[in-house]
């Protein structure tokens, strides 16, 4: 039940594809490749040849799996190096950036006043904002999605509103947040809340509507109470859809927080990136880009591995 693209009524909700499951190297294959100490009879030789062929195929696969991404990264470094040597040489090359990163990550948790703190603190405060905004969105969005999926009246009531508000850039909500909360931090959390609530509402609602009629017939034949239906049938059936929504929401939240922090300032990886631009420290900007990518990837992996545990199909 890997719901990758789901729609409520409007456009598709993009879902990044799940990376292929890592094919573990089977230990018995590796062992079979070792030459047997017994005297080689004809069938023995044949078996050994087969084992060797298997081992070769295995090696080729492993090589391809590691070599291809490695080549990709090497290519990126090469292009980067070349670009850094052209034009007015404003872009620092990989070596410079690496040295700068080593220096930066040597002390990630220093504090020298409110606007000068280690990159570790900045990442953590961004994650905290995302966690808060996203957590509140989950608290509101998932139950709301359940109700929209379960009660058609509510769906017809809210569907036009959701369709209207969903395409709005989350940053458009930032001034409203600033106006209401009169502080940058809650406004940023509010923006995260708004942007991460839609995927959760929509996917949960779609999930509820996709619950096979068979399961609901079981519930009807047994005359189960609405609460039992919720706990024993709807929730487990909707869980994979819900987790897809959660994954999309976290992805969006992480995209948005960087932009929001650039506008609100204070502390956070987005603010830090903007601050380094004001300092004209391009090496640090490049580091920030890599860090944002890595954290986003880590969040995605975390949620995919959670989602996999609840896949029953």
């Amino acid at each position, binding site marked *: 039940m890997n719901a990758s693209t789901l729609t409520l009524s409007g456009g598709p909700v993009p879902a990044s594809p799940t990376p292929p499951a890592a094919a573990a190297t089977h230990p018995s294959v590796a062992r079979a490749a070792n030459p047997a100490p017994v005297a080689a009879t004809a069938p023995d030789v044949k078996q050994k040849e087969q084992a060797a062929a298997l081992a070769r195929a295995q090696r080729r696969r492993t090589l391809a799996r590691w070599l291809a991404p490695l080549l990709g990264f090497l290519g990126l470094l090469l292009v980067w190096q070349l670009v850094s040597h052209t034009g007015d040489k404003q872009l620092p090359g990989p070596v410079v950036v690496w040295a700068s990163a080593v220096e930066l990550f040597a002390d990630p948790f220093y504090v020298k006043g409110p606007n000068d703190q280690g990159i570790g603190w900045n990442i953590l405060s961004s994650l905290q904002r995302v966690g808060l905004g996203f957590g509140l969105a989950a608290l509101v969005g998932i139950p709301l999605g359940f109700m929209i999926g379960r009660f058609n009246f509510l769906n017809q009531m809210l569907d036009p509103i959701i369709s209207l508000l969903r395409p709005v850039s989350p940053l458009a909500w930032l001034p409203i947040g600033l106006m209401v909360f009169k502080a940058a931090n809650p406004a940023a959390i509010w923006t995260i809340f708004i942007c991460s609530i839609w995927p959760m509402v929509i996917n949960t609602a779609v999930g509820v509507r996709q619950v096979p009629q068979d399961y609901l017939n*079981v519930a009807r*034949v047994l*005359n*189960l109470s609405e609460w039992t239906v919720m706990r024993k049938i709807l929730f487990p059936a909707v869980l994979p859809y819900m987790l897809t929504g959660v994954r999309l929401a976290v992805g969006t939240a992480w995209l948005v927080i960087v932009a929001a922090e650039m506008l609100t300032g204070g502390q956070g990886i987005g603010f830090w990136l903007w601050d380094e631009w004001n300092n004209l420290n391009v090496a640090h900007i490049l580091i920030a880009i890599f860090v944002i990518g890595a954290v986003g990837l880590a969040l995605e992996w975390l949620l995919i591995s959670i989602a996999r545990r609840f896949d*029953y199909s």
Partner: protein
Amino acid sequence: MSNPSRFLRIEDVGMSFPTKKGDFVALRNVHLDVARGEFIALIGHSGCGKSTLLNLVAGLTTPTSGVLLLEDRELRGPGPDRAVVFQNHSLLPWMTCLENVLLAVERVFGATEKKAQLKERALAALNLVGLSHAKDKRPGEISGGMKQRVGIARALAMEPKMLLMDEPFGALDALTRAKLQDELMRIVAATGSTVMMVTHDVDEAVLLSDRIVMLTNGPAATIGEVHKVPLPPVREAFRPRLEMAHNADYLASREAVLEFLYHKQAHVEKEAA
């Protein structure tokens, strides 16, 4: 006391579904009385409304006309007194076999019995279908035939007044189907259940049932004929299929049903298109 031969009464029942081109009449003027402990087979060509009739008895749909009575009480909506075995087993994939059965047991007996007793009931039901060993497996880990047996165990564990089966073995291979039919005979003999089973398999209908209710072709289907199988009821005497293969009564019943399906109601293929 209610008349024992009128355990379930279906009185002038009609069912129509609203469509864009006006009402679609699926069933009309259905009359049927079922006795306690009787095994009824519903047979007919595809689209004749036999599943619709079963769903009406299950209470999953309400008739647009007429009335259904179980023990002189009108049937309003589904309830655990009429357990349904669905064609596609309908087990919940996130629960083990035992938990699936327990869900039904808890609903029916949860208010009056302790946890241990409930579990006992569920285990007994799994034992009845020969699946004690698979109690901790999830539906995804067992074969289609085993899933269907868990579905039957879930239905039986509720100790329903009626067992309703909607083509329960339709999706299984012939050998598994035969095995489960034998098992069902044994279960009916052990429990004395009143069964209504939808099937499209003539042999299954004759082998298992006491009466075969044959429906005319839809739309606006109704009961065409009711054939009484002149064999001792399954709950009293097991019907070994090898003996049945040259039993005159069995063969005559088989012929009667085939005659109805392929002679009297033969034009279905043209109309279905």
